[in-house]
């Protein structure tokens, strides 16, 4: 499903180049639920961004479903992200001026593979599966943080991606909501066979996944 080969990312800093990720090679199997664990600044989010096609590696390659995503043109990479990769972030990532249903339908509409009616029908279905049917017409500010996060998950799932990437998805949520989100991830992984990679600094959450990938100083650690 996913292979990262000798992946590195270097940022230019005031005191010279800083290696955020330094030569990481990992493989994730289809249907696997993996977590990337490390302290703040360990390079886990940079690694996830390269895996998700959001940040170009300084070195190395990322293959998702046998596609070398960083060999794609910018437009093709945008299409690939749209169709095959879903993202959930550590902050409220919904567009505040759009209704929940518009936010969820947006990736489907951007992809242009479905007409508006189909995209909205699918958005409502997905929201229903995540228990947000009553909030389709609400605006993000009108629902709770946990509901916003579930809406963001619905948005990530609207195009039935092969890979779901979550960057500290529960970092600002209470324990109960955190539990609901993790239950949701496990259900998606179990029922749909969805491959999940979650970045977290919380070892307790990481222990609920199939595999823990530890990272420190931009390198894999045993």
């Amino acid at each position: 499903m996913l292979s990262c080969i000798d992946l590195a990312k270097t940022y230019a800093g005031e005191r010279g180049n800083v290696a955020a990720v330094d030569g990481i090679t990992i493989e994730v199997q289809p249907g696997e639920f993996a977590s990337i664990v490390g302290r703040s600044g360990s390079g886990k989010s940079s690694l996830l961004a390269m895996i998700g096609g959001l940040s170009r590696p300084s070195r190395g390659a990322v293959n998702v479903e046998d596609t070398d995503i960083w060999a794609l043109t910018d437009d093709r990479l945008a299409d690939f992200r749209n169709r095959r990769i879903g993202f959930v972030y550590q902050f409220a990532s919904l567009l505040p001026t759009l209704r929940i249903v518009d936010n969820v339908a947006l990736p489907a509409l951007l992809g242009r593979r479905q007409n508006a009616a189909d995209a909205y029908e699918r958005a409502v279905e997905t929201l229903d599966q995540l228990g947000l049917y009553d909030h389709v017409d609400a605006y993000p500010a009108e629902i709770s943080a946990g509901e916003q996060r579930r809406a963001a998950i619905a948005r990530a799932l609207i195009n039935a991606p092969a890979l779901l990437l979550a960057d500290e998805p529960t970092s600002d949520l209470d324990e109960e909501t955190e539990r609901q989100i993790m239950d949701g991830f496990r259900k998606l992984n179990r029922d749909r066979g969805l491959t999940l990679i979650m970045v977290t600094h919380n070892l307790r959450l990481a222990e609920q996944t199939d595999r823990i990938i530890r990272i420190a100083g931009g390198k894999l650690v045993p």
Partner: protein
Amino acid sequence: MAKQSGIGFLVARLALQNLGRRKARTLLLVAAVAICSGAVFTGAVLIQSIESSMSVGFTRLGADMLVVPAGTLTNITAALLTAEPTDLTLDEGILARLAALKGVQRVAPQLVFRTDASGYRRGGDLVDFIAFDPARDLTVQPWLEQHLDRPLRDGDVIVGGRREEAVGSELLVFGWPLTVYGRLGKTAVGTHERGLFISFATLAEMRVTMQQICGMKAPLEPNKLSGILLQLAPGVTTQQVRFGVLANFPGVKVVSGEAMLTSIRQGLTALLGGVLALMVIMFVSTALMVSVLFSAIITERKRELGLLRAIGARRHQIVGMLLTEAGLATAAGGIAGCVLGLFLMRAYQHSLVYHLDDMGIPFVWLNATITGLIASFCILATSLVGALGALFPAWRASGQEPYALIRSDG
């Protein structure tokens, strides 16, 4: 079922809603663009109106040159429609010799007499009587807007475009009843618009009465002319004929349409060029202002743009959304500016036109279609300028990595 929107509509809605999120800033942008658009619109309409007024005043004239007594002062706007009222005169004998001059195709004699003693409308109004020869006329009958369904005859009078007498009605001047044969169209030339036009034959019949009332004024003497309008043969230049006239007829002055038109057109072109340069400067400054503003707006919204990129928005879709936003705001400013310009022009119409008239510029407002076209141009131009202004910051932002955009503090 939730209300559905296509991606184009959703992007447009996002653009509108983003503008609505920062109302004060959007209103300031709209106001700044409105000032630019209003100035450009008003300037363009006024310049076009002046140019159109000039066209009315000059391009429809039948005469190429006017020969008048040397001391005559000539009003350039009126000169080639009619001679100016003056006590200086030419002898009628000059007419045949002028007609025979090489390069002259037609000659049209006129005698203009200004008086406040005609008894016109039973008052002391100052009236210009213009006697002309209907058979040789170049500049009076072509302007007839309404007339009786018969040829002009002795005892008829043609009234200028601003006179109120009905065609077919009777007009009493110097105790003579004259039939209003026709009315001229509006020429924007004062003498022409307010004059009473009679044939030389009618003047001859009334001459004695006029002399009795007004005294023996030079223009009322027999065989006198105030000026002679000339139409040149094709291919002949005004310079060639001017030399011929001045060489053969001492004591005359030649007013050449071409020279006047050239100087006026040159002046107008310079003015038009200045206004065009000002318009370009205003548009460029608007583009720069929009560019600076959108740089700030985009910096604030980097995370949102990064999210859109992450979920699959292509670079051109991001740029399109931002350009739509800039285009909508500046188009609104353009519309507001045109409305403001229209309002101001209407509010100051009387004083403006009065001042222009005072400067010798007859003023004819543009028709609604052309005004509408200019307004449309201004709105489109401001919208385009707004989009162009936002293009650089939008393109630059859309080219950043989605992760860098998402991580930003905006």
